[in-house]
């Protein structure tokens, strides 16, 4: 049983469309991270959010940490083929905890 559930599991959209990926848990996290992983490579960190309600923007990507620090979302505006990949959320239950819990992942395909 994974602590963090992501939805949708798979998403295929046309270039230029907007999308939102969700990361949910019944547990409270001290921080949450989003990663992107491409085939044959390890995950690459996109952002870290630490405060409930926090919103961070990275170009066309907007990340939000839920007020109760149990959930997060990733919104992509005007998706591009280069956004294709596996998006993973990951969280720490306590500040400084060694164990990083990863979500189940969302596989995004952006069709040109």
């Amino acid at each position, binding site marked *: 049983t*994974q602590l963090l559930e992501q939805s949708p599991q798979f998403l295929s959209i046309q270039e230029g469309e907007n999308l939102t990926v969700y990361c949910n848990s019944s547990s409270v996290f001290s921080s949450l991270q989003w990663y992107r992983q491409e085939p044959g490579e390890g995950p690459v960190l996109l952002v870290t959010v630490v405060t409930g309600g926090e919103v961070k923007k990275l170009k066309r990507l907007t990340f939000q940490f839920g007020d109760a620090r149990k959930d997060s979302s990733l919104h992509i505006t005007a998706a591009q083929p280069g956004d294709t990949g596996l998006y*993973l959320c*990951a969280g720490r239950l306590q500040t*400084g905890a*060694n164990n*990083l*819990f*990863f979500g189940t992942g969302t596989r995004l395909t952006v069709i040109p």
Partner: protein
Amino acid sequence: GAGVSQTPSNKVTEKGKYVELRCDPISGHTALYWYRQSLGQGPEFLIYFQGTGAADDSGLPNDRFFAVRPEGSVSTLKIQRTERGDSAVYLCASSPQTSSDTQYFGPGTRLTVL
């Protein structure tokens, strides 16, 4: 600079055999982590090293799994009496100092147990 490297990139073995997977962290990084990623899942934490010592091995599934980092740099994950269920991608990550720092992942070793 060079990132985290892992060797081999692919390993195929037979059930019951012993395997070793190697991780070369980013130079100067004192923290090192091993994760296992099964098909269609997110990575699952296995073990964390701070320097030469295993600071947290709570994610190791059973005593067939063991990891070492004798000189505080390169680490080896060792799996004895492999089982088909051990098939997965084994990821290594390193971070500069503490477990709170950003983790940089290697490309992983894909282990297939026949």
